[in-house]
């Protein structure tokens, strides 16, 4: 690549040549000439320079010279710029890590984000996903034991934002824990994707595509409001019980603009729940078993969680459905107790309890564990979902972890229809920054049947 400094009328080749000569001269030629002591018996009281002091203490008349090293000179000169660039990057990242590991800096940072007694605080969040607009956010926290109040907000643009508020009450008696959360959620976005029902939506007769349009998915708009009460009880260390009751309202329709709107891909009115407002009351009961050490970020253990949920439409929405699911994973320690191999499978199932009324598509189980697509995509909807996954995690340093994984997603109208033929798959690599037991930031690079995906998230979890 040629470039010139016009006002000097000198080409890049010549500039590089001049820089090369300069480096060659400065780095090594100047050391090729011997330094002789002018006076090796200088009285110590008259020493004013480093060189004088050195010659006096060393007791020398002539200093040592290492001589000229031609290949070392050449190597240093040729690699000077790449070396400085590499050192600069490592220096910047090293400085960042020094800051994070420095108690003084953490204290100063806490002064910015928290009051001294940590009863009031805030922190920013950032989420970047390929194919979506970046979302910046802020979380506020007010804490006065045993109560806590958190407000979270995320914003991408005036048509994509999310706010949550959560009030918590927490009680602990010996090993027993009880927690009550009251949550309010409002989100508003128009970049959700819908692919249709079944493993092959184009051939599944539950989907009615507009023939002239061959696109695989359409965007839809959702305004979602929810009010939830969640109670959790931990009678013993490894077992937890949860009960959730929630009222939710969703408004689903065509997005305001864009070529690939859902009503231009699917025949309007053919998607259950689309272009309407529906209200639901759900009740969910779940049980969790977790034997992982909560004070260590990477450690072995078993995790099993199962739930049962009943969802009933309210007012003019007369649908009734029951869903259930189970997530099971086992963290095996390989070689060392912080090299973890985790096979996991997740099963979801839904049953329509009122055959006369279709279940809105947003009520179908969502494959949030499948990492081949972002969480705004409804890739495979069906009565049954199976998401097997295998992940290997290991530490890179005290605060940085690495993970490689592969996920599959299968769905079917019946259990017997589940198949891995043409099932979406994804494989990826994750780097995360974590504290002793919590993730603070992560970067994901994923490739799969749905293409490349990049995701970065920053948001210190301080509570």
């Amino acid at each position, binding site marked *: 690549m040629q470039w010139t*400094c016009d*006002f*000097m*009328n*000198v080409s890049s080749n*010549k500039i590089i*040549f*001049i820089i090369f000569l300069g480096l060659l001269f400065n780095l090594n*030629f100047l050391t090729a*000439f*011997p330094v002789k002591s002018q006076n*090796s*018996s200088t009285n*110590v*009281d008259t*020493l*004013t320079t*480093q060189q004088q*002091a*050195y010659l006096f*203490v*060393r*007791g*020398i*008349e*002539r*200093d*040592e*010279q*290492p*001589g*000229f090293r*031609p290949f070392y000179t050449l190597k240093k000169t040729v690699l000077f710029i790449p*070396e400085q660039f*590499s*050192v600069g990057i*490592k*220096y*910047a*990242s*090293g*400085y960042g*890590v*020094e*800051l994070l*590991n420095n108690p*003084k*800096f953490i204290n*100063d940072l806490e002064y910015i984000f928290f009051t001294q007694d940590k009863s009031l605080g805030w922190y920013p969040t950032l989420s970047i996903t390929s194919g979506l607009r970046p979302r910046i956010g802020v979380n506020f926290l007010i804490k006065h034991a045993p109560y806590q109040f958190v407000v979270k907000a995320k914003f991408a643009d005036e048509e994509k934002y999310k706010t949550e508020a959560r009030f918590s009450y927490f009680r602990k008696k010996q090993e027993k824990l009880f927690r009550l959360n009251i949550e309010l959620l409002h989100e508003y976005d128009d970049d959700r994707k819908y692919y249709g029902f079944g493993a092959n939506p184009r051939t599944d007769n539950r989907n009615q595509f507009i023939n002239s349009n061959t696109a695989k998915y359409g965007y839809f708009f959702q305004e979602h409001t929810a009010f939830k009460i969640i109670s959790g009880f931990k009678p013993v260390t490894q077992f937890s019980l949860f009960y959730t009751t929630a009222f939710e309202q969703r408004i689903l329709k065509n997005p305001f603009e864009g070529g690939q709107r859902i009503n231009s891909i699917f025949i309007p009115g053919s998607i259950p729940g689309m272009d309407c407002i529906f209200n639901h009351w759900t009740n969910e009961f779940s049980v969790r078993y977790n034997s992982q050490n909560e004070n260590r970020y990477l450690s072995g253990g078993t995790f099993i969680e199962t739930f049962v949920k009943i969802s009933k439409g309210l007012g003019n929405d007369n649908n009734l459905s029951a869903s259930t699911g189970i997530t099971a994973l086992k963290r095996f320690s390989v*070689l*060392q107790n912080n*090299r973890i191999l985790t096979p996991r499978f997740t099963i979801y199932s839904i049953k329509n309890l009122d055959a006369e009324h279709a279940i809105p598509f947003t009520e179908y189980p969502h494959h949030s564990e499948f990492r081949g697509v972002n969480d705004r995509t409804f890739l495979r909807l069906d009565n049954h979902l199976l998401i097997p996954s295998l992940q290997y995690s*290991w*530490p*890179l*340093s*005290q605060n*940085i972890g*690495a993970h*490689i994984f592969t996920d599959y997603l299968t769905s079917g109208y019946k259990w017997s229809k589940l198949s891995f033929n043409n099932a979406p798959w994804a494989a990826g690599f994750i780097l995360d920054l974590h504290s002793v037991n919590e993730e603070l930031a992560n970067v994901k690079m994923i490739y799969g049947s749905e293409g490349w995906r990049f995701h970065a998230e920053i948001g210190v979890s301080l509570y």
Partner: protein
Amino acid sequence: MVLKAGAFMQKLESLYIKMKYNIYIILIPFIFLSCAQQSFQFADKEPVRYFNDIKPVPVPETVFKNRFDYYANVLPPRAMVSSFFIAPNNHARDVNSWDEVPASSWYIPRLGYNVITPDELVKGPSEFGPPVPPLVLIRIRKPESTPRLFIKDARGIHYLLKMDPREFPAIATATSLIVNRLFYGFGYNVPEDHLFYFQRNDILIDTTSNFNENELDNILSRVAYPQNGKYRSIASRIIEGLPMGPSPAKGVRKEDPNDLFPHEERRILRALRVFAAFTNMSEIGSDNLFDIYVGELNKGYVKHYLIDFDDAFGTNATRNNRLWAGFNHNFSMNDILLNLLTLGIVVQDWEKINYTPWPSVGSFEAVLFKPEKWKESHPFDPIQYSQPEDNYWAAKILSSISKEHIQALVKAAQYPEIEAAQYMIDTLLKRKTKVLQYYLNQVTPLEYVNMKNDTLTCIDLASKTLESNDSLYYHIEYYDSNDNVLNNEKSHIQVNNELVQIPVNKELLDKSNKYTRINISKLYNRELLPAVEFHIRNNKLVGIVH
């Protein structure tokens, strides 16, 4: 200015055109034109034993006036990663003609130069003794895992009390005492630390302070439980003088005219590589170098101390579950890349460490310890710049520590468990042996004894210290003052004990114009070690270079 720059560049361009085809003809001679390697030439004078750097100077500015100074001046050097960093091959500048460090405001020769009995080592810098109750509490350093109390005793002497964490009783206090005395023996200026037991009602709150009895009780509830009603602590006497703050790890303290050698080129600081490896003082850094202005204002001088030893012996690793302390830098791109590319399959040594059954010892061990691979948590310039001869000098001093010294220090530390004390003695001895085994054999470890009857007599320190019975083989070369080789044939000698005698005959001295350099290289593990140079002038030893 633009026009002048343009004219200058035009001239360079015409030079480039002229040189373009002759560049190789011009460069090749430069590349192969060698300024010949040149050795030292020593003057005929006695080695400097004492360097007077305590001349009266004005009070220098205190460094790190505010937090910004700390982030701008202390942290950036720590972030230096050593992946591509290769220290320049610079000899230390504070060494004399016999390759020793003269006494100064940094260093007082003790072990290795004077006989220090175990009792003297245990006594260490003690001058005023431990605090005398009642103790008036003046200030509490910001409550941390191991809070520190500033107190004044009944004699009006100020001390800093440091206690142990609750989970690891005695770990910090025992470590502080032993390592303080070790570094005293190595020659550093250290504060006067004492193992001190006190009762809760020995402490009175100063009326001018802004805390109360409840706050003190709250702090004491976080430290190790009292034994027999007494809290265990290290009482560190506050050094009298004007605190100047940490000493810079690189360069000099600009406002101190006595500070004439860049700190990264001081052997006394470079030697910390060996001493810190021996004691696993992984958090060594500029925070441990403390300068105090002593004497009357503008008539005093800056004295340099080494402080804060309670992170040694893996204490920091134990308390914070950072078992890699001493094995890796806190941030090492090389290690991250290695772990990334090998998917964590390579299990590092520190991952195999187990905690000992004694909380006062924690994870301190000698089995996995490799002195050549020891690393400080934050790259520290003097350690990064250390050369084999600096490490050899430090190992030489370390070799003067005997089993009796270590036993006396461990006994003085009063470990709560007898087995813990014995374990510490064994571990320290093993670590010492490993350090000496490695660092005494990085250069030819010959020490001058005398020169009589045309014979230069030396002692092989490695062989003597490590009690080796192997035959020792040395390769010898003779040079004159212009670095011309004097002996036509390569000479070598073989000895069966640590005493090595090198012939230096009159003919050689005449041939060399009265200045002879004798290079002696030891054969070790089938390789010749870097030579030690003995410079002889007028039949007298005038210089030694390792």
